[in-house]
């Protein structure tokens, strides 16, 4: 879901970059010193996850994992994803330096939405309910990212519905897979170390 160089127009790039800059600033301010190792680890998880291709479906897609990153990091997801994307751009030429802002926003903003939607729920007493929410979180984060990418491409003159449909169909396997992965992660953390889920943004 990385948008390449030279596709988006300047206003979209600038808008993406400024939104990302603001959110990263806020994320850094909110980030507690104690949270640092967790942010670093999840940032590298994001960095590596994009290399895992999902060989199902019509197009070339990979894991994103922004749902679980949002759940575990809150606003710190923005700096984490920005750093990971920057290194993906430098080392693997995914996306590029100018689209960094837009790409960060399309992936980190859904993470924040998921955080606010599901942060309470996954800590609840009822195990089944919490895990269902975790699945929805993983699923929804990719879905929202797809919609955001389609929105960014909208200004390049492509048909929104067409692009959105294409992205969503291509990412359906990823959505399901990420839902399952999020269930495993949340289930595991609930048992082993529930305090990691305790996070007030």
């Amino acid at each position, binding site marked *: *879901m990385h948008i390449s160089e030279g*596709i988006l127009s300047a206003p979209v790039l600038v808008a993406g970059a400024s939104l990302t800059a603001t959110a990263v600033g806020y994320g850094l301010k909110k980030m507690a010193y104690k949270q640092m190792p967790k942010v670093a680890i999840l940032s590298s998880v994001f*960095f*590596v996850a*994009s290399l895992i291709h999902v060989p199902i479906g019509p197009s*070339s897609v990979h894991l994103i994992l922004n749902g679980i990153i949002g759940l575990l990091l809150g606003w710190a997801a923005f700096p984490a994803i920005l750093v990971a994307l920057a290194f993906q751009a430098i080392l693997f030429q995914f996306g590029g330096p100018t689209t960094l802002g837009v790409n960060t926003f399309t992936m980190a903003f859904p993470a924040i939405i998921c955080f606010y939607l599901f942060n309470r729920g996954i800590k609840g007493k009822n195990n089944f309910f919490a895990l269902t929410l975790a699945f929805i979180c993983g699923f929804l984060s990719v879905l929202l990212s797809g919609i955001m990418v389609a929105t960014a*491409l909208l200004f390049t003159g492509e048909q929104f519905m067409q692009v959105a449909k294409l992205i969503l169909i291509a990412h359906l396997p990823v959505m399901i897979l990420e839902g399952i992965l999020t269930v495993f992660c949340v289930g595991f953390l609930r048992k082993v170390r529930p305090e990691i889920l305790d996070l007030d943004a």
Partner: protein
Amino acid sequence: MKGRLYLILIFLFLIIIVINIPIFAHKVNIFTYVEGNKVYTESYFNDGKKCVSSKMEVFDNQGNKWLEGLTDQEGNFSFEIPQEEGDLKIVLTASMGHRAECIIRADELRNTTGLVQENLKEPTSKESTESILVYKMGEENKVVSPEISSQNLKEVQLLIENILDEKLTPVMREIKKSQEDKISPTEIIGGIGYIFGIFGIIAYFLNRKK
């Protein structure tokens, strides 16, 4: 502490998985070659999937669009070389915001087309017959008739071209393979190291503030 250890273990596990599966960068590539008076392109995502019916645009060196088309089911696209001189830029726009471009230099185009065509056009001209005659005088034992020029030259040229195409196909394939830049474990582990380093620096500055 125990939980954090588990996290690190999961993370290491992820790395091991990643290193053991073939990894390709998530981007699109164009591979081009010139054959006769046509330019052939193949486009593919780095995991090997072809870019089916993606938009291809060809620009001349002034940036004017020269032609536009769609790739076929195999991700192939070909077009005839335009008459004007100058570099050609090929831009591929694949689905979901992927884009790649590649430039074919003018001399590359001329080498394969210009020379061949010139030779074909004037094999009967004075110069070529003269040179053949000279050749004949030099080596008297060899019988080279002047008539070799027009008909045979064409055939020989075609033959050479065919043989070259045949012989070069595997080489082309190898070049294409080497262009598919696979990601090495070094880069992955290096990247992870950089990320930890960056957050180490951020932690340092956050700590100093307090």
